[in-house]
């Protein structure tokens, strides 16, 4: 259902619902020009759980997320989505699988348009080209003749989740950094992906915006979404994760519940990282 500017009153709610994807990385390796960035990583994300990847800068966290979101093809090993290897399927089939995954980056990177147009982009690009053309003509007509922008239910639902429901007609360029990142999260969520892949989504945010986004991530988990998150924030990892995975120099050192990883890690390297010993390479420091 479409709403116009002064027509947004009701409170839409999400269906508690929806099927969720199980993601499994099986002995995944990824390298560029002979240099391995991720080596032999095996990790699963079940529906309704938050798996957080921690590790020092350059450990391969972003690359691992890009492999999980099907941005990159592993040089070795398999990424399975509900048991299927997308890279063994046709491009169209892989696109269908990729569209079941939503990705949020460290930077919001919103498009130069309204908040609503940013959030509903996922829905629009899933429509057939003929319908997209019709929608375009209709939208231009609405804007020029009536001067009134419109918004659909899914967009409002996603914005509701990040506390920006009333801001849907604002220009994205006028948002603060925190608001922009919340819109970016809503943009990933609006097409109702089954798995969310989040690359340090709160690293540039103030505590208030971080709290809002963490609550939104938690609500996504409650709805059955699997969440794979990379963060530098140990407290955040401890707060919101069901399981924490420690990545070091491209290798997965240890995976477990946050209580164990942060209080009684099994691997000495994990213990050193948690203590703050492995945050940087001593050789990288200036003399």
């Amino acid at each position, binding site marked *: 259902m479409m709403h116009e500017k002064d027509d947004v009153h009701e409170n839409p709610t999400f269906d508690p619902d929806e099927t969720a994807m199980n993601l499994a990385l099986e002995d995944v390796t990824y390298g560029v020009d002979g240099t391995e960035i991720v080596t032999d990583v095996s990790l699963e994300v079940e529906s309704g759980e938050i798996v957080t990847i921690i590790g020092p800068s350059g450990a391969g966290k972003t690359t691992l997320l890009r492999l999980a979101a099907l941005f990159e093809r592993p040089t070795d090993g398999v990424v399975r989505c509900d048991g299927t290897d997308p890279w063994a399927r046709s491009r169209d089939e892989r696109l269908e699988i990729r569209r079941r995954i939503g990705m949020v*980056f460290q930077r919001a990177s919103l498009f130069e348009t309204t908040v609503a147009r940013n959030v509903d982009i996922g829905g629009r690009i899933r429509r057939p080209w003929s319908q997209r053309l019709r929608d375009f003509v209709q939208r231009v007509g609405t804007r020029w003749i009536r001067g009134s922008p419109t918004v659909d239910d899914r967009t409002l639902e996603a914005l509701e989740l990040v506390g920006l429901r009333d801001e849907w007609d604002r220009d994205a360029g006028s948002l603060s950094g925190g608001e922009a990142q919340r819109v970016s999260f809503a943009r990933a969520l609006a097409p109702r992906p089954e798995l969310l892949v989040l690359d340090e989504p709160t690293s540039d945010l103030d505590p208030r915006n971080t709290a809002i986004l963490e609550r939104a991530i938690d609500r996504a988990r409650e709805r059955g979404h699997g969440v794979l998150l990379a963060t530098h924030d140990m407290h955040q990892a401890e707060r919101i994760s069901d399981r924490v995975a420690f990545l070091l120099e491209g290798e997965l050192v240890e995976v477990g519940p946050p209580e164990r990883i942060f209080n009684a890690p099994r691997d000495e390297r994990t213990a050193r990282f948690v203590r703050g010993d492995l945050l940087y390479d001593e050789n990288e420091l200036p003399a």
Partner: protein
Amino acid sequence: MALEVLSDPTYLRSIIRLSLTVSLLAVLLSTALSLPIAFAVGFGDFRGKRFVTAVINTGMGFPSVVVGLLVWYVLSNQGPLGTLNLIYTPEAMIISQLVLAAPVITGVALSAIESVDDAVQGAAYGVGGTRADVALITLKEARYGVITGILAGFGRAISEVGSVLIVGGNIAYADGTSKTRTLTTAIQFEVRKGEFETALILGAVLLVLVLLVNGIVLRLGGR
């Protein structure tokens, strides 16, 4: 004498009509040619990309008289396309303006496309976009730069004197209306006759036309 231009609207109208027709068609064709090239170069990752970009940028500074000379040679009776009998016609003027405007539109559009943040393309891909979706979203993000390129191309085309004079010949029919006479060549013609006031009036008309076209294009582009 200057008032004659205003008192005989047929002459003025024919010059304005030809100027606009030639320049708008040249820009339309240039845009159709330039945008795919800008896209292919902007998105492509191939050997010689820097060389192609350098050629496009060099093209932006082509001396118009040299372009006119080359087009004249190609279209003249002795030239490779001489049999088409296009020399001293509005079509020849369109071709010369196309050659001048295309590098400008390509260069500015390419720069606009390349300046779109890679992260925006990643975001477009991340919400489930295909390569075509990513390209379309990038074009949309670059739209103001692309529009600026089209306007710069139009500016170059409609203000052109040298090449249109060579390939068009600044010809008027016996009744005084324009065959290949544009506002710019008419200004040059009037100045040579010593009719500075008439030239100034024509110059003012040209200025108003350019402002009008720019305003319309910017409005359509949402600015």
